[in-house]
């Protein structure tokens, strides 16, 4: 046990006296930034794709859009996120001659990637809403889009909230690969603390704890949101 407390001391020394906490805060900030902005971008892209994919397909335009969206989803679900990060950072950016910080790259790639997954989640959500809801909206003279955004999507979101929460949690954990393109996340921060103190046991333990606390907090937030959205289901 004395051995362990020595390790804790070494960790605390690296964490407090050698500016480890600043690095951890930066990592935490990046992790959250990438996950949250990635989710926001993902929801936007996913919603657009989902709507395109449930569009009635009598005309040519929806069919072309549908083809594009299928290709997009296939592309981003068909390759690992690490590969997407590396290709985007080391292939696309130099080819296009754009300079961008690795955190921004991570936000974009995670957004594009989760957009592909969320589109399928959102599509199943839209399909889970009774077709009569759309018909009722159209019957009183609302347009397809008005009905979609005011009636169908809100109910779809309510239905998929637990799955969407899952996606967010997965996203938080997946961000641990952004170090591949040189962004500082929690892993890099604790790895640095470990290297400074020549002691990895406690830093990685604390890192695991931080991830768990993050995920628990998110689950709690989702539960609260779900409860407020479920208002319309409750009998009172």
């Amino acid at each position, binding site marked *: 046990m004395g051995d362990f407390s020595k390790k804790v001391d070494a960790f605390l020394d690296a964490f407090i006296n050698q500016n480890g906490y600043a690095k951890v805060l930066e990592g935490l900030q990046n992790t959250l930034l990438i996950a949250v902005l990635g989710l926001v971008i993902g929801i936007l892209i996913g919603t657009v794709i989902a709507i395109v994919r449930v569009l009635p397909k009598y005309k040519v335009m929806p069919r072309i859009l549908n083809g594009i969206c299928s290709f997009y989803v296939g592309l981003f679900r068909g390759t690992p996120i690490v590969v997407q990060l590396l290709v985007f950072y080391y292939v696309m950016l130099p080819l296009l001659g754009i300079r961008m910080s690795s955190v921004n790259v991570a936000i974009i790639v995670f957004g594009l990637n989760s957009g592909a997954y969320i589109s399928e989640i959102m599509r199943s959500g839209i399909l889970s809403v009774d077709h009569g809801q759309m*018909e*009722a909206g159209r*019957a009183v003279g609302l347009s397809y889009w*008005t009905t979609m955004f*005011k*009636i169908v999507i809100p*109910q779809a979101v309510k239905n998929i909230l637990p799955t969407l929460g899952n996606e967010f949690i997965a996203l938080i954990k997946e961000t641990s690969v952004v170090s591949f393109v040189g962004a500082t996340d929690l892993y890099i921060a604790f790895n640095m603390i470990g290297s400074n103190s020549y002691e990895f046991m406690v830093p990685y333990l604390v890192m695991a704890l931080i991830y768990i606390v993050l995920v628990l907090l998110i689950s709690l937030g989702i539960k609260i949101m779900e409860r407020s959205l479920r208002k*319309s289901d*409750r009998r*009172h």
Partner: protein
Amino acid sequence: MIDVINLQKSFGSNKVLNGIDIKIEKGDIMCVIGPSGSGKSTFLRCLNCMEDPTGGQIIFNGVDIADFKVDINIHRRRMGMVFQHFNLFNNKTVIQNIMLAPVTVGLQDLKKAKRTNVMIKLTNLFRSSRMKKDLVPITTNKAEIKATAKENAMALLNRIGLADKADVYPSTLSGGQKQRVAIVRALAMNPDVILFDEPTSALDPEMVGEVLDLMKQLAKEGMTMIIVTHEMGFAREVANRVLFIDGGQILESAPPAEFFGNPKNPRLKEFLSKVL
């Protein structure tokens, strides 16, 4: 008011409507009956283009709404529809259900008028003083549209005795209450005609009465109604014309006394002998 000319509808190779011709006048209460699979629901849903007709014309207030180029949303405002499964908006409270369409449509029109005015002002800059165009008068505003819609919705709820349910969600209502709310939701747009698609078929027997009573009230007030129904008693009492549809065609169209008392079509005779 509605003039249906040679209406046809097929789903793929399956022909559901085989040339339907019917004239519906203002104030008509028309009941449509027929065996299941006869095309009566499809006929009703074609009237407001819920199903796009594959042939023929539907002249509503002088416009052929079966034409794809027509903005159907404008015309649907004048045609209410009540569904078998109510289809109240689950994410809206009762009063929001009733207010949604009037408010949305009102705001859309307001926005459109404002946009037109901007264009007129812009083009007026290049016109000589004699040629200047007048602005579209805007007499209302956002708050007023909402207030009017709310007032109207409360009045409608009072009428069906559900004013105390204004702020609850539809999931807490009984079937009969839901259907009555659905009917006043259609009424909130002041439609010229209301289409009823088997409005009592999904209800418990003891709730059928309250819905039929409300429909009778509407009929008395002179609302034009087209009702697909299995309620023969209601059809006999309220309708001024009853249609019998089978095989996608109108086989008999007569006032109820004649329709039920002296049916001519053999298929109708057979049908009535089974259901009456």
